[in-house]
Each structure stands twice: as C-alpha cells, then as structure tokens.
C-alpha cells in the first residue's frame, strides 16, 4: 500500500535513530517566580502595557463594579453565560432596568447575526492568570461559549487574584492542561491588535477593541 501516510512515515522511519525522549533542563522556566502577593501587580504591568484596563473589586462587590462600568460606558447590553459560575453570580446581583443582561443560550447558528451586530460587550470568567507576561486563562465551553470573548467589541473578564500563576508553563502544569484539554482553551493578554501597517500598533482589528479585567482581591 502506498498511501501518503505510509510513504511519509516510511521515509521518516528509514532515517530514524529514534529512541526515548531525552530529558529537558527546565531551570530557566522554574526560576521565573513571584510571591503570591506580587503576582497581581506583575500581571497588571504586562497587560496594561498592551492596553488592557483594570477594575478593582472585592469578592462581594464585583457584580456592582461591572454594573457601574456598563452604566458609565452607556452599554445597552452585556452578553453572559447564564449557567456559568461567574455568569449566574452576576445575574443574581443584577438589578432590573438599565443595561440588560443578554444570555448566550442558543447555538450560534440561530444567534450569529445578533452576536455580531447586536451585542455591546461580553462577560466571561477565567480559570486563572499568568503573572510573568500578563495573561488570562480561559476554558470556553457549554456554559461560556467561545465567541463571547471574541466577537463583542468589549470583553469583560473576571479574574480572582488567588488564581494567578507564575508562568504559562507553570499554569499548564497546575491546571493539568498537559493531560487533557477541552475542545478550546486559550490565553488572552489584551484587546485584539495589529502592527501590520508600518509597525504602528492599532487596537481592535478583528476581536474586542477593549479588554476589561475585573480583578477580585481574594488573597486576604
């Protein structure tokens, strides 16, 4: 049988000197560490450098902080995942009137037009952060669909200070991402940007124009 797969693997094997994977010296990654209390500031430094905005909040008042942000910015609606932990907590504390909470609770096929043209901002939780470079770790899924953090012009993300890791590498290990991953997981460090025209930075090219991190101080 001479299908491409057999032919390619055959050629690779013919040149093979393969053996077990040699060990790696990862000391350079291990020495990138910050005390837990300094990680939020380190994360903030990295993310603010790429135009991410921060709102400070407490474990009790973060829904109100988001609410007042929406009012201040004159947003008409906020897309949220009604069955996610962060989404349901937000809904429970959301007063009637003013900016409306819009649930993402249908398949995108029946929601695409509205998602692209009728949403002012999207709200998601995070599963952690990365101090070294600044970054949010997200695991979209049934409760928080993938496009919530991508299509609306503003992305508001909830980050608990206690979930910030030193590096992306240490986060991957701590979260067990190396063993099993959902269909989509990602790190986000700022609003969408490009430098394709004369190396001049422009924000909001295809994804959100603004990224707002609601940083919850839960490290008492």
């Amino acid at each position, binding site marked *: 049988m001479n299908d491409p797969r057999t032919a390619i693997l055959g050629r690779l094997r013919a040149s093979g000197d393969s053996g077990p994977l040699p060990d790696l010296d990862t000391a350079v990654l291990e020495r990138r560490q910050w005390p837990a209390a300094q990680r939020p500031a380190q994360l903030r430094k990295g993310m603010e450098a790429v135009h991410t905005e921060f709102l400070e909040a407490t474990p009790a008042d973060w829904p109100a902080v988001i609410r007042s942000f929406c009012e201040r910015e004159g947003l008409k609606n906020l897309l949220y995942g009604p069955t996610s932990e962060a989404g349901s907590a937000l809904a429970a504390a959301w007063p009637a009137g003013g900016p409306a909470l819009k649930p993402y609770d249908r398949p995108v096929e029946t929601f695409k037009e509205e998602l692209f043209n009728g949403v002012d901002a999207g709200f998601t939780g995070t599963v952690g952060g990365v101090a070294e470079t600044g970054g949010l770790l997200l695991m979209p899924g049934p409760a928080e669909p993938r496009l919530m953090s991508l299509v609306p012009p503003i992305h508001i993300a909830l980050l608990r200070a206690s979930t910030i890791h030193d590096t992306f590498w240490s986060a991957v290990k701590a979260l067990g991402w190396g063993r099993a991953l959902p269909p989509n997981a990602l790190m986000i*460090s700022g*609003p969408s940007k490009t430098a394709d*025209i004369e*190396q001049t930075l422009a924000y909001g090219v*295809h994804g959100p124009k603004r990224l707002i991190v609601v940083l919850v101080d839960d490290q008492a």
Partner: protein
Amino acid sequence: MHAENEVHFRDAAAKALLDPQLRANFRRAMDGLIAKRKAQFPDPRDLQDLRDLSTAIRSRSLLCLPELLEQLEASCAKNGIKVHWAETCEQANELILGLLEARGAKTMVKGKSMVSEEMHLNAFLEKHGIEALESDLGEYIIQQDGETPSHIIMPAIHKNKDQIARQFSQKIKDAKYTEDVDELTAMARKVLREKFLNADAGLSGVNFAVAETGTLCLVENEGNGRMSTHVPPIHIAVMGLEKVVARLEDAAPLYSILTRSATGQAVSTYFNLITGPRGEGEKDGPQEVHLVILDNGRSRIYADPQLRATLRCIRCGACMNHCPVYTRVGGHAYEAIYPGPIGKILTPQMEGVGVRHDLIHGSSLCGACGEVCPVEIPIPEILVRLRREATHEDLGSKVAGKGTGRTATEDWAWRLWAGVIKRPGLYRVATWFATRFGKALPANAPLIKNWTQSRTKPVPARRSLSERMRAEGVPHE
C-alpha cells in the same frame, strides 16, 4: 549537470537595491524589530538558557518524529479531529478542495498560514470557484494587491501607509482616502467581519501540534485566527510535518521564545489551543476540524543528520530581521515563499540546490542569523554545506538537485586550474606570467569583472613565494 540557474536572485536583488522607498520601508521596520527583540532579552544568561531549552525541545521532537506524528494522529482522532496526510502540495490542495466541495463550501476565510502559501492554495481554490480570503491584516493587504508576503510574520512590511491608503481607497467599496492607521484598520475590520459572519469554511496554520493531547496551538494578535477557526462550520488546519511537539509543556517555552524573537512581544494577544470541534453542549465552534499534514520535501531534509536542523525552525522571522542582505533587498527579491536566511536554506532543499543556486550564494556568511535563531539552527554552516551540494554529487547525499548547480564556466575554470596545478613546470610558467603581467590584466576582463564590479582589483606579488624562497635560499620541498 550544467543546468543554468532558472531563478536569478542576483538580478532581482540588484533591482530592489535601486528602489529607495523599498529600502527605507525595510530598514525602518527591521531596525524597530531588532530593538524590540533586544529589549525582550535583557539577561543574556536567560536568553541562552531559553535557546538551549527550545533547541532541545525541537531536536527531541525531530528525534522521535514518526512516533510523535502517529501519536498526534491518534490523539486527534480521539478528540474528533480528522487527520489527513499529503506528500505533495498538489495532494494537499486536492484534499482540501475535496473537503470543501463535499460540503458545498463556496467561501473560506483564512488565518495566516505559510504552509498554505507554499501550496499556492488560494490560486488553486479560486480556479475551482471557491473564494479564499486572507483575514490577517497584512495578508489581506497584499492579497488585495495580488502580491505575495515579503516577510513570514509581517507580510505587508514592504508597503508604507501612504501606499496602503491609496490601495484601500481604490479597492474597498465606498472607502475614503485616509492615512490614519486606526481608520485603515477599521476599514479592513468592517469588510472582514462580514466575511467571518458568512464564510462556509475557515483555514488556519499551526504553530505547534501537541502529540500527547492532540492539540493545535495557534499564536496570533489580531483575533482573525480565532474568527477563522471558531466561526465557520468547518475548520481546516494545515501544517508541515515538523511542527509536532511531544507535550503541551514543551509548547510553553517555544511560544515564549517565538513571540519575543518575532515581534519583541513578551506574549501575543491570543494563544489559542484547539483540541477538537464543537463539543457536547457547546453552542459555537466548528462542527468539523481537519488537520492536513504536509511533507513537500521535508522527509528528504529529515534524512540528512546535518540538514535536519532546518526543520527545527519555529518560523519567528528573527533571522530575516537581522539579515543585512534581507534588510537591503526585501523579501520579494528571493522569489520564494520563505525569504531571508531560513528561506535560503529551506527553499533550495525543497526546490533543488541547482535551480536555487543564487539563493545559497546570496549571503555574506556574517553569521547574524545563526546568532539570533531561537532554536540555534546553524544557518551559515548549512549554507556552506549546500554550496558544496549544489556542485557535487556526493555519494549518499539525498539533497534535491545535488550537483545540478554546476555551470559550464565553473567546470571549465576548475579543469583549467587542476590541469595547471598538477604540472609543476606549467605551474611555474603560469605563476611567472601571472606575477609579471597580472597587473596589466584589465579590470573589465571576463571573470575578473565579476570581482571588480564592487571590489578593487587584486594586485599580484612581483614574485611568487617559491621564487622568493629559492632566491633567498630558504630550504623547502
């Protein structure tokens, strides 16, 4: 044997050198990128340790390449990602066309993919009535103008904003003329959002494919990669077979050194990990994900222990940013998908060292590329090796087109030299003439001219060394 070069980097480079606008665009861009990269690596020890680690990760991935590819295929299958194999670009194109036609897809949005450039996928699909639209801003700009990328990371780097402003005002419907970068970006956003919303399929490249988890890692800043891979109902990813790594932990340091080396960013806006199509209960994401693994000469490169290092490349572009030749002539002069130093070793190995002989010699061997390479590819050493391969048919060599770079002139010159050097009497006569009359040789004589075009004519000594030794009574022989 004796195939004359078909592609003339020398001529294209000479033409590019006469374009002051092009040279200014590249000089400015490359200076910026060099400074930004440097700022990302303040500690030389950290940089060296990270380079060593990255090199080790890529080397061991290549060491176990067939096993890792099989593991990747199995992991992907478990996750619902269908894996396809292609030996040639033609096979890969047909494969993708088949997938699109079976689903009646008429439009496809593309995230940035150099492998799809290698395949000339856009032209192929358009011939079959399928619109393939580039959505990376730089790629969008050059596709609109019918051009190819001049840099692997910043494809439109050869254009300045006035040129782009003129182009947009002519080619985008109802667009007004503006040189404001934010406004230009907003124009492209508006056009492309509409395309993402309606596309039948999405295509992307792959930065790292993780064998253990069956995950495709995509690095990007714009969000067009996420749009292309999450919005349309089908996502097709294409990758060169060398892109696999063993574990997700391996991808982390590679990602870190990639963004810093490429654009001087500590981190990109998005690091997107795709491990499957829309899962149970998910409300968005593609219904199908396909991965096309392309060989196109890579398994031949793999067969040579020295040249295999070529496949360590993570496509950061740092070698071109730091190359004195690339900075002066720009990316298009190479007439190759991959320009710059990495292109100079990759393209001849893919297309044949004979037909791309000019590329192998279009280097001063200054060594800057090897010095900045995050995975320590010895580009200058490989260039020297390929120079030999181009003119020799060494036993056991598997290099494409080996020996076909020899020209009749070169052959004749070497034969003449060998004939003289092997006959001591003739050699003495020849050196006597060369030392006495060499000075009189006009600078524009054939062969000499190639040297004197940009250098002073060498002046031979008045007497040869052996003459002097004899005259001064130095014992020899």
